[in-house]
């Protein structure tokens, strides 16, 4: 350790705060998004199941985010028998 580094201020806390704020903003948005897809999946499943017999495990919900347009793709496998 030289004399100059001893004199230099060591305020690392503001760096920590800034890094955390950026990271958490990103992570919070990710978590909200996965929750949204799960909710959407359940809701779609419930409504479709009213009219046709579906295999719940085969439902896929995908969101592709683009810069201007995003697409939502829902794939559901339907059994070839009418609902009771």
């Amino acid at each position, binding site marked *: 350790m030289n004399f100059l580094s001893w004199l230099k201020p060591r305020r690392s806390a503001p760096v920590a*705060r800034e890094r*955390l704020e950026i990271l958490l903003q990103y992570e*919070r948005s990710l978590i909200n998004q996965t929750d949204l897809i799960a909710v959407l999946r359940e809701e779609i499943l419930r409504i479709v199941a009213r009219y046709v017999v579906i295999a719940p495990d085969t439902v896929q919900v995908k969101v592709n985010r683009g810069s201007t347009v995003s697409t939502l793709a829902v794939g559901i496998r339907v059994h070839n028998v009418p609902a009771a």
Partner: protein
Amino acid sequence: MGKVVVVTSGKGGVGKTTTTAALGAALAQGGQSVVVVDFDVGLRNLDLVMGAERRVVYDLITVIQGVAKLPQALIRDKRIENLWLLPASQTRDKDALTEEGVGLVISQLRQDYDWIICDSPAGIERGAVLAMRHADAAIIVTNPEVSSVRDSDRIIGLLDSKTLKAERGERVEKDLLITRYDPARAARGEMLNVDDIVEILSIPLLGIIPESEHVLRASNLGSPVTLCAPTSEPGRAYWNAAQRLNGEDVEVIVPSSKKGFFDRLFGRRAA
């Protein structure tokens, strides 16, 4: 009906068990009936911190499995008669912790105690989720350190989605407890300060526990710091937090950096 409080953090080693013991003892000393419950199956330590490690016969898992009745597993504190401990199992499989079993134990405890304080395991897995599942309120224990703050944020997200209250559309009360705080280092900008952490996590502050040798001494002795050193800085800070948890209108004690001339002169180099 008792109030269920989970002490949680995401990150390990931040002071959940110390906090559970200290707050439980303080509330019980104030005359209310308190049970502290260890949810850390396989890595139990609340018994050790409470000084009851040689009195454990049955535990939470044996009660859930029906091997023992709940009253058989509860250990009464030797210092405070209305303070009880329900230990975790050290040897059994942690998968034995079932949602239904935990629900039954908690509802029984709610009948008999004013406070049920659940010491959560670290992480965000099953054990941590079950510990928070029935909570009315949560204490999020956070160190002034980036990884701890990040994990606390994650835990806050889980409290808002995985608890019974959240699923019913209600809110779990969430309070922040900052531990291992060094006011001198925070003042010098070397450590996240209280405002930084409160603003980042945006939940109300329950208390600030300063870094202190008394905390280690308390766990060495197997006595909650609120009992073995009630007038020490961390002892007073935990008493203050317990009063606030109890709904009393008291201000948070903010630890000050009382440094002498030589500490000020050489403090920066030592830090």
